[in-house]
């Protein structure tokens, strides 16, 4: 069993135990969202449908669902229900809104390669920004260290269910590379070529290390000492982890694609500003993108919006992100409608907020869509999900309410000002 799967199973079963206590009597804690305009994302929208939730999981969805007697019914009066939003690229918890003096955890910049550095070890779940993220409808987040080193370390995927970092943990988020040649940051070689070569040399070193460990195990001789950096790169070679590559310009994106090919990596590109120029190459290499941050950097008329539109048209995987604190988390959903204005289908735009970011981390069998068996992470909106006139009214994670606009309550307990 791969370690990631093991973690998932471990955490999943712990959660299942925690979620088993029924919220209030009834049939084993069954929650029925009725009279809902459901957006499964993996299928066409369902008008006047029912979403049935048991033990934190979706058990049934459709128009012909019988609600067990004793189930808790929530009649949403025709409102929209979508999967919880998945923010694929965030630095939340590193640079705290409510305590700016603790803003040093975003970037480990003491050296260029930081594969052994784990985001989870510097994360503060008391960051008030998490409450605002819930108000935006975000239920899952990949939190990664910054991009001021070619390799800034390991990311972590959390659910915004409140509590400690351990309680929020969902999965390891793989690694982060930054394919840039930025003289502003001392950690970068002078060309993107050199950045790629630096990362490639680390991958080769990890391969040698793994081979030596394997050979020692086979022969019974003493293995080389454990090296956390090599182990981390090794997890990319073994496909246990994905790697997200920070790059925006066409040259950086091409180098990322080349790196994927050379080492057969499970790789996606984040930011991906110049997707417009590389649609064919991304499709051919099967490289997904996480495009962002979007608002306020790209408005209604920016031509860069066309890259994701064309990539999605061709069947590519496009996720969106807001990159807190670079851009405001609240506008993740709003950003998606900009692409619809430019021709993206509503289904693809919604997938960019939910299913596709889940795919980046191979979590689409758990989150990102409304289907039987998936985690009951969903958002109730006052109107159509991509309309700016619609508001996020309630948010659920694992079947539990974590945000309620009318009461102002949320799982992190920080006050969300009126308007967010």
């Amino acid at each position, binding site marked *: 069993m791969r370690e990631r799967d093991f973690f998932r199973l471990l955490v999943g079963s712990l959660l299942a135990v925690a979620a088993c206590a029924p919220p209030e009597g009834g049939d084993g804690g069954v929650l029925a969202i009725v009279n809902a305009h459901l957006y499964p994302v993996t299928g066409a929208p369902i008008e006047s449908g029912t979403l049935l939730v048991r033990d934190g999981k979706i058990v049934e969805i459709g128009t012909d669902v019988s609600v067990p007697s004793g189930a808790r019914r929530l009649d949403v009066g025709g409102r929209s229900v979508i999967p919880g939003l998945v923010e694929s690229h965030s630095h939340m918890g590193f*640079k705290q*809104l*409510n*305590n*700016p003096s603790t803003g040093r955890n975003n970037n480990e910049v003491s050296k260029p390669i930081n594969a052994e550095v784990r985001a989870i070890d510097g994360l503060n779940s008391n960051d*008030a920004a998490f409450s*605002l993220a819930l108000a935006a409808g975000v239920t899952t987040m990949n939190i990664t260290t910054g991009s001021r080193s070619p390799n800034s370390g390991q990311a972590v995927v959390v659910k915004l269910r409140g509590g400690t970092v351990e309680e929020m943990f969902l999965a390891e988020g793989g690694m982060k590379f930054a394919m840039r040649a930025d003289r502003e940051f001392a950690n970068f070689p002078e060309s993107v070529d050199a950045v790629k070569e630096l990362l490639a040399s680390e991958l080769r070193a990890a391969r040698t290390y793994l081979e030596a460990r394997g050979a020692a195990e086979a022969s019974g001789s003493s293995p080389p000492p454990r090296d956390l950096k090599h182990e981390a790169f090794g997890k990319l070679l073994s496909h246990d982890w994905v790697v997200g590559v920070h790059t925006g310009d066409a040259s950086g994106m091409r180098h990322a694609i080349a790196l994927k090919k050379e080492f057969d990596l499970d790789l996606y590109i984040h930011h991906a500003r110049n997707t417009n120029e590389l649609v064919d190459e991304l499709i051919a290499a099967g490289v997904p993108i996480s495009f962002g*941050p*979007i*608002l*306020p*950097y*790209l*408005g*209604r*008329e*920016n031509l860069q919006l066309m890259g994701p539109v064309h990539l999605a048209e061709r069947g590519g995987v496009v996720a969106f992100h807001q990159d*807190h*604190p*670079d*851009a*405001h988390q609240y*506008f993740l959903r*709003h950003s998606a*409608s900009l692409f619809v*204005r430019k021709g993206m289908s509503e289904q693809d735009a919604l997938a960019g907020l939910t299913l596709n970011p889940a795919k980046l981390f191979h979590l689409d069998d758990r989150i990102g869509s409304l289907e039987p068996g998936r985690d009951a992470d969903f958002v109730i909106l006052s109107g159509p999900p*991509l*309309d*700016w*006139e*619609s*508001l996020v009214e309630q948010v659920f994670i694992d079947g539990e309410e974590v945000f309620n606009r009318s009461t102002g309550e949320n799982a992190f307990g920080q006050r969300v*000002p*009126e*308007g*967010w």
Partner: protein
Amino acid sequence: MKNQMLELVIALVLIALLLGPLCWAAHTQDTPVAIRGATILTGAGDVIDAGTLVFEGGKIVALGADVSPPDGADVIEAEGLYATPGFIDAYSHVGLGFSSIWHRESLMAASRRIADSLDNPGDSNWLRSGVTTTYVSPGGQNLVGGLGAIVKLTGSLVRNAAAVSASFGETALNAFEAPTTRQGMIAILRQTLIRAQEDALEGDDGCTFAQVLTGELSFRVLANTPDDILTALRLAEEFDLHLVLDSAAGGHEVAEAIAKANVPVVVGPTIIGIGSGGPYETFALTPANAASLHRSGVRIALSTAGSGAGRSVVMEAVLAKTHGLPEAVALRAVTSDAAAILGVGDRLGTLAAGMDADIVLWEGHPISTWGETTRVIVDGETVFER
């Protein structure tokens, strides 16, 4: 060689395309043009169904439900479309380069004309989104940052010295080593105003502050906490200033006081990056501010504080509506109310005879997610057609 020629040709074509809209605006059209059949939202609150609007020589000459296109007029058929005034972004930094956005030498730079620093203030993305005019403000790093300018997004100047822009609070405090406190900054400003009252202030600054004291120039204060807002109100009362508040995060907490002082607010952008903002601003610059201020009786305009690219005041208006600002008020906040607050309400912001022919045609309601500009006209010239 061949490639170089090709590159040269492409470059020339691009330059022609970029300059095209500016050149069109440079001369004024002399054949009357009639927009026929649109739902006309005048910007001042009136709605004319299936109306006709006529303009000539860059000015609107007539509009109404019973107006007919004059003989020989070019007719733009606009049935099913909305017509509005060109939108106004009442606070931006468009056309200002990084080096000219604020004055690094001194805390006070009251007479610095921002118009002198403008580097091609035209912005085609903003024009395409329906925004035709903006107040270009100095940055908030100087306690008094200079004289802001009003420009059209075609690049033409509407008013050179339109207001004096000042800034209270963290941004100014962090930009200079001294003073080290808010009260220290305000003391410097108060002393300056008193010297101006006594005609003891020399040179350009004496002239600028004299115009501030007569109310000829409005005094705009960027303030992003309730305390800073109250300080601005205190000074305005003390010196009888023609005060306009900019951004006003937290304004909802002191809305009554703002309304009582009859001070308008250019509500700050909600669509921002938050990395650089302070913690309070991030929480308080919410899309509900505009509605809160309006409910208390404050006249508002909307703004992006942007420099082109992504931000558009159209989107701010949609968000403000979503969070409680009545649709008609949201429209006024980016048209007639914005023009009035900027002091150019006699020329811009309303579709009426005699006004500049800055007109936007929309498919779908302009204050909505899916509303889309189909044609943008500035000074009677079509500068964008979708």
